[in-house]
């Protein structure tokens, strides 16, 4: 298919409601043809930002540009966007094909051309057999496909999707996100997708911006965001993790170790440059459940198993550490024997993949150290 999509740039974008600033000076570049997701908890400003791209929300400062054209004051209908709404916004008085043809009619596309493009699009999203149905006779997933078809058929420069899957049940959500991803790839259109579901974001996105309180916390590929969260907010929002207080201690010759609890420390020489030698620095560790292993050599954090949930592929353990903190541990079911409830264990941490943050949790100390 055609590819007329654009790059989107946000320069010092500000959104205010009255005197309240909800987005302060945001900068972001979305590349041409990219599937870009705005991810964050509700109220983080992701939908506000999307609606600024669509033109439904005013922009109080900065510049929003498609390629190099500033769009701040262009009305929604002139931006050449396709938008999929959270509740689909299918026109209930129009049939499936009339809904899909709606945007083409407004563009004065010739009748025959309209018909051709509508049936082609209905075929792409696999609802051609329902083309004469009224929306009330469609399931949620089918309505979703109509909404998608209606948004894409006009050959928009940008496809905008606002939590499009949140009204579907879990299984359909997985099917639809795969469908959306493959259709997007096929059409090659720049897509901005909003969701609060991190798994969904990881599944569909080329890149993700994690937002909180109107501020972008991190931009990266799903892998980067999961493996190297830039701060504790991202670390805890994406996937599950255990946050553990620790001390970074540096010795002579740049050696460095992270001490967790009384008798366990991890050698992390790459952090040596962060503190003067002989100093000790408060840090916080983000240890994902799979980054704990049951230690066999007596090294590690001492604790007692308080719960044990067998989930087939793996087993989730809740371990009460000696310092009173409960941590979550994932043990591959295949490996060794399962730890039983009440059993005392030692948890070793895999130092290669964990993340170390400063005491405020704002800065990832692993980043910028070349790892």
């Amino acid at each position, binding site marked *: 298919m055609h590819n007329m999509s654009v790059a989107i740039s946000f320069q010092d974008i500000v959104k205010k409601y009255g005197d309240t600033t909800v987005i302060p000076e945001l900068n972001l570049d979305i590349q041409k043809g990219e599937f870009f997701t705005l991810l964050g908890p509700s109220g983080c400003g992701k939908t506000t930002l999307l609606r600024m791209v*669509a*033109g*439904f929300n005013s922009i109080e400062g900065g510049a929003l540009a498609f390629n190099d054209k500033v769009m701040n004051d262009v*009305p*929604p*209908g*002139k*931006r050449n*966007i*396709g*938008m999929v*709404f*959270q*509740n*689909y*916004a299918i*026109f*209930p*008085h129009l049939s499936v094909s009339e809904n899909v043809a*709606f*945007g083409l009619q*407004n*563009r004065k596309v010739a009748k025959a051309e309209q018909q051709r493009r509508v049936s082609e699009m209905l075929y792409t999203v696999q609802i051609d057999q329902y083309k004469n149905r009224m929306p*009330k006779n469609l399931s949620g997933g089918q309505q979703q496909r109509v909404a998608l078809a*209606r948004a894409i058929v*006009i050959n928009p420069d940008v496809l905008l999707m606002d939590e499009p899957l949140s009204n579907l049940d879990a299984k359909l959500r997985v099917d639809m996100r795969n469908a959306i991803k493959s259709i997007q790839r096929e059409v090659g259109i720049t897509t901005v997708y909003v969701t609060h579901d991190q798994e969904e974001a990881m599944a569909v996105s080329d890149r993700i911006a994690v937002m909180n309180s109107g501020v972008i916390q991190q931009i990266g590929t799903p892998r980067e965001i999961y493996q190297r969260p830039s701060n504790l907010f991202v670390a805890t929002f994406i996937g599950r993790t255990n946050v553990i207080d620790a001390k970074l201690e540096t010795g002579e010759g740049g050696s460095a170790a992270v001490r967790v609890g009384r008798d366990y420390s991890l050698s992390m020489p790459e952090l040596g440059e962060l503190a003067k030698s002989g100093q000790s620095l408060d840090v916080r560790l983000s240890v994902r459940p799979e980054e704990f292993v049951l230690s066999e050599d007596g090294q590690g954090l001492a604790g007692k198993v308080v719960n044990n949930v067998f989930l087939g592929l793996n087993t989730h353990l809740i371990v009460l550490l000696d310092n009173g903190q409960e941590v979550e541990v994932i043990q591959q079911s295949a490996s060794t024997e399962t730890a039983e409830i009440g059993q005392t264990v030692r948890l070793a941490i895999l130092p290669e993949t964990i993340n170390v943050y400063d005491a405020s949790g704002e800065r990832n100390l692993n980043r910028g150290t070349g790892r």
Partner: protein
Amino acid sequence: MNRMKRWDIWSLITFVIFAGYLIFLALPLFMLLIKSFFDGTTGEFSLAYFTKFFSKAYYMNAVWNSIKVTVCVTLLSVIVAGPLAYIMTIAKIKGSGTIRILILISSMSAPFIGAYAWILLLGRNGVITNFFHDVFGFRMPDVYGFSGILLVLTLQLSPLIFMYVSGALKNVDNSLMEAAESMNCTGLKKMWKILVPLITPTLLAGGLLVFMRAFADFGTPMLIGEGFRTVPVLIFNEFISEVGGDDGFAAAISVIVVVFATAVFLLQKFVANRKSYSMSALNPIEPKKLKGVANAAAHIYVYLFTILAMMPQTYVAYTSFQKTSGKIFVDGYSLDSYKAAFSKVGDSIYNTFIIAGITIVIITLAAMLIAYVTVKRKGAVANLLDTFSMLPYIVPGSILGIALLVTFNKPPLVLSGTMIILIAAFTIRRLPYTIRSSAAVLHQVNDSIEEAAISLGSSTMRTFFKITVPMMISGVFAGAIISWISIITELSTSIILYTGNTRTMTVAVYTEVVRGNYGVAAALSTMLTVITVISLLLFFKLSGKKEVTM
């Protein structure tokens, strides 16, 4: 609920209510039918009344007039109130809460009071007419006849469209509007292609209500029509007139009217059913502050309508405090009109409260039971009951009055001239409001709540009164208040059924207006308005809503 056919206390209740409808609605309508087909003097079967009606231009003219008034009023109401509701939905209007209440109040008064107020304002000797004549030397166009009826009824009935459309717009999801905008469908095009189709079912429902009310209204053409004869006027004259009145002929016209109204009703149902969408808005349309000319225009339109709609009641209230000398208003203010109202027609105030009071008690009880039977005990009998209870929508008040009178003015049951016949008529006519409002609440009550009570050993009736009634009571009272207001402002049935002892306030206002006692009429009307406003405030408090479903 168990759908098995069981005989229990509910069967008995259903039977009693059913019998009530048969005696006070079905039988009278049947008697009307009989009367229209049998010659009044010879008692033989005859189509003479119908041939007389259809063959004389005099009668056909009235039919044509009625249709003209009704269609024009309905269209005008939609044209005036549709945009009004749209503006109030999308634009922030200063004082919109108050405006909604004022519009509601204006719709709740008796239409003929509007007619008489506009005569005082724009009539031959009207205040505004005289003002224009004295100041500009300019004669206003005549307000009597067709144009006057149109003015009064449009102002009186367009609030109904306003309320219906406002309700529908509240259910339109804003994303639908945004979806259209994102595809470059904006402004009027968006309204025409998206909004209008979505609210068409509502427009049809509201339009039907306006149509039926305009069609059945008797007081307005009587007062301001001046020879512009509509069908209700015709029926009234034929039935009441001391010289040459003919019950049989009035009955025949009534039958024709009911058939016509039924046809319109069914046509509306047919069209509306094919176009209905169930909508519920996740993100309702939020009113936005408009800018510049659009903002000014929106405010002017809304305020102008509200002022015009409130004008009759306000002006009538004003005149009620004017000094009078005999029948004429003179300079200065006094409470003379009120004193006169109490001394001359004080009995009408008493009657109104007694009759409306007893009626509302019956309505409340009956509506609870009917709502319960139709919602929770579905079946053939329940469906029939549902149909019966909605019949008053298509039987104009004056016709129900005539039907009751021809049925109960001779043994075995003589009720004419008593309060009972008025109470029966009001109950039948105003039950639907309370039934609907009670049923709406009852639909929300889960069956399992009652089943829980019954499983704990509570009897059927105990369960109803201890469990179900408390849950539906807010809806019942809200509906009862609307029924109450519509009873105290009712004219077309009471004017047929009243006698010297059972005169109500609206009848008194009407007769005083006809006699030219404007001061007394104004005082009574103002009292009615005050009662209406107090009742509405009570309604808002009880229902926690700021709107009324009619």
